[in-house]
């Protein structure tokens, strides 16, 4: 324990002297969080611009448009006069949805003929398209039901209430848990924080691991590596926590969960992600090459961690392959759900166990490969430093 604390102190002493590392470990997550959160600060999904072509121009058609305009999800931004204009506005993305009301709508409704109102959604962005569709369908149905009630009332000589209940035999409402507004910010930002944590930890660890590989191989390998992981992960978890606090307080991102559980999972993830970090430093033996590979992995690991496309929708074989090779799939989504949904310990445990099993298998393998690579007599610390210092470039910068 004393040796571990000594090495930990040594790592912090090293970090203190490296401006690049200080930036990486202390400024990295807050800076990236603020930058990305800024992009999602405005809530577009709640003001989808729509274009309207009203060829009927009756009281009924105007009431349909008013329903859309008053709905918080939509904003009628364009009134157009031809179908071509409507198409152009959708093509140029000036509006995200189009509403076409045909001529004689009012007349047809009064004469008891069904008339079709056309809703054009932009399928290029599936997520926004689906949200827009669900709300638009509800609005048109509401207006339709209103007209239906009037007709039933007249035809059946029924009081308003009976006509209403006949037109709407049942109602349906919905309740959106955790994020009633369904914002991109709440949906993605914790996932991004998880990926920032992963990437910055990889970079930080590479610098710390490659600074004195021979010494680390020679004695107290586990304790030395443990100290490096603790130092880098500790700094990042601290600044990551501050970033999350800012997201909650400053940007009103949902935070209802158990922060300690999220921290515990983050620690397990830090240990797990150190395995590929150690392995990659062993393979590359070079901070530059390591950085190239780790940057190349940031997007694919995010895309395959179950955030953008849920893990249970992936092909079975691919999911297995991802789970064996990269631990982010056990962390990112669960981390988000702990914070947003207050996912209980019972539901977190399977992923936590997977992280432990991953570490238990890959840590010994990584350390073995690492010792083998850096224990080779030809490779001295000096020669590695020289490799990294071609053309006078300092690897620790």
């Amino acid at each position, binding site marked *: 324990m004393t040796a571990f604390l000594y090495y930990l102190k040594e790592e912090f002493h090293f970090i203190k002297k490296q401006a690049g590392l200080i930036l990486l470990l202390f400024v990295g997550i807050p800076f990236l969080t603020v930058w990305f959160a*800024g992009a999602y600060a405005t809530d577009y999904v709640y003001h989808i611009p729509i274009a309207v072509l009203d060829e009927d121009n009756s009281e009924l058609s105007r009431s349909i448009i008013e329903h859309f305009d008053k709905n918080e999800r939509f904003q009628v931004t364009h009134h157009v006069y031809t179908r071509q204009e409507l198409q152009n506005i959708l093509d140029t993305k000036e509006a995200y949805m189009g509403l076409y009301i045909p001529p004689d709508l009012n007349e*047809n409704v009064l004469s*008891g003929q*069904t008339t079709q109102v056309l809703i054009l959604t932009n399928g290029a962005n599936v997520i926004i398209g689906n949200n827009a569709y669900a709300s638009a369908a509800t609005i048109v149905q509401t207006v339709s039901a209103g007209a239906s009630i009037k007709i039933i009332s007249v035809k059946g000589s029924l009081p308003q209430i009976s006509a209403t209940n006949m037109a709407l*035999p049942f109602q349906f409402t919905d309740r959106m*848990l955790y994020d009633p507004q369904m914002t991109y910010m709440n949906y993605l930002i914790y996932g991004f924080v998880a990926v920032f944590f992963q990437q910055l930890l990889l970079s930080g660890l590479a610098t710390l691991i490659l600074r004195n590989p021979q010494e680390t191989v020679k004695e107290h390998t586990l304790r030395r590596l443990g100290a490096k992981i603790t130092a880098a992960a500790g700094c990042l978890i601290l600044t990551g926590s501050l970033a999350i606090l800012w997201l909650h307080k400053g940007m009103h991102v949902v935070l209802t969960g158990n922060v300690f559980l999220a921290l515990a999972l983050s620690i397990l993830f830090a240990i797990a992600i150190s395995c590929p970090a150690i392995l990659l430093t062993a393979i590359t033996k070079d*901070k530059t090459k390591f*950085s190239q590979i780790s*940057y190349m992995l940031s997007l694919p690991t995010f895309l395959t961690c179950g955030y953008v496309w849920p893990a249970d929708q992936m092909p079975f074989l691919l999911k297995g392959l991802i789970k064996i090779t990269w631990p982010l799939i056990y962390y990112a989504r669960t981390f988000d759900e702990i914070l947003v*949904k207050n996912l209980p310990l019972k539901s977190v445990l399977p992923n936590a166990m997977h992280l432990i099993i991953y570490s238990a298998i890959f840590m010994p393998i990584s350390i073995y490969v690492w010792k083998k690579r850096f224990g080779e007599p030809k490779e001295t610390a000096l020669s590695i430093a020289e490799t990294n210092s071609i053309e006078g470039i300092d690897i620790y910068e």
Partner: protein
Amino acid sequence: MKVVRLLYESFLEESKKLKTDRMILLIALIIPILVNLMVGWELSKGVMDHIPLGVVDEDNSPLSRQLVQYFADNETFALTYYAQNQEELQELISHSKIKAGLVIPSHFSEDVTALRSPSVLMIYDGSHMSITSVAKAKASEILLTMRTGAAIKQLEGRLLMTEEEAYQTAMPIAFETRTLYNPAKNFNYFMTPGYGTIICQPGIGLTAVLCITSMPKRKKQDILHYMGGKVLFYGGLGSIAFIINILVQVFLFKIPCRGSLFIAFFFSILLAMAVAAMAVAVSAWMPKRTIAIAGIGLLLLPNSVMAGYTWPLLSMSAFYQKTAYLIPFYHYGDNIRDLFLKGSMQHPLSDILFLILFTLAMVWIAASKFFFFQPLLTKEDKPL
């Protein structure tokens, strides 16, 4: 002729590195292609289905069972749990066992018959937008269909209307939805055309950013051609990655490309050159390798978000909108998606012009380091 010779010399200098530095091919070609294959495979299903659904049926009548059956028969949902009450349903959602819940109140059927218009409740897990948006759209569709059917039956039974008359009375305004450009709402079609490129971009950047290590003695004007040769080399490598990626998408993953593949290739080459030029400029101005790598990483990796590919730019603040204009991918992403999904692009000329001017400006910025600050450096004299 001299220009061509200078460009060729610089190009050759980089291509010789391929023999000694395997990382160039690994980073610029192999990893992007493998990752694209993986992402294409991941999204191959395209549309989410079998979203786990829980049901509380407090009525348990033929009508309520019919409603449940509608959901069970729809492939968007997988009826996974029958819960006893709403609390249990919410607990299932909070444990992530289900993503949506349907609550049918007691006396539902009785209330429908007695014209008391009971209310059915849908509960969604709002924490996962991509799943919930699919579930909500489909659930609304099912419930509206079911409700219209029930209204028609009421009208037939109580007001003795014919089926057609009842339909017209129950649905005086029908609505038809047309999902433009991507009628199947396929996630793969929406994501992959641009994301494939976003995955390849860092490969160009992370290799090109290491290319300026020294500056042989040259006349000032020749430095521009020296930089141009580097851009051609790494832009060329990137173009190969982009083109292979597009071919994989179209021929292996069957993503329909309604427009011309050659236009897609042309746009991809322009983007590859722009990204390579940006990386060469970073390389010239940031001689420390790890800093240069971090710099180009920061410039390229957030492109999918900052260029408005998934989250529309018009929803972002003016600052983000203005800075997005300077991102080369902004001038490519929507164009390539339009080319794939619509078959044509809106005003591509301004974007083509931007990409060309951006490339030239970056070559000049790269060279300007040596014009103004370190002219006439030689390998022998002093490394950068």
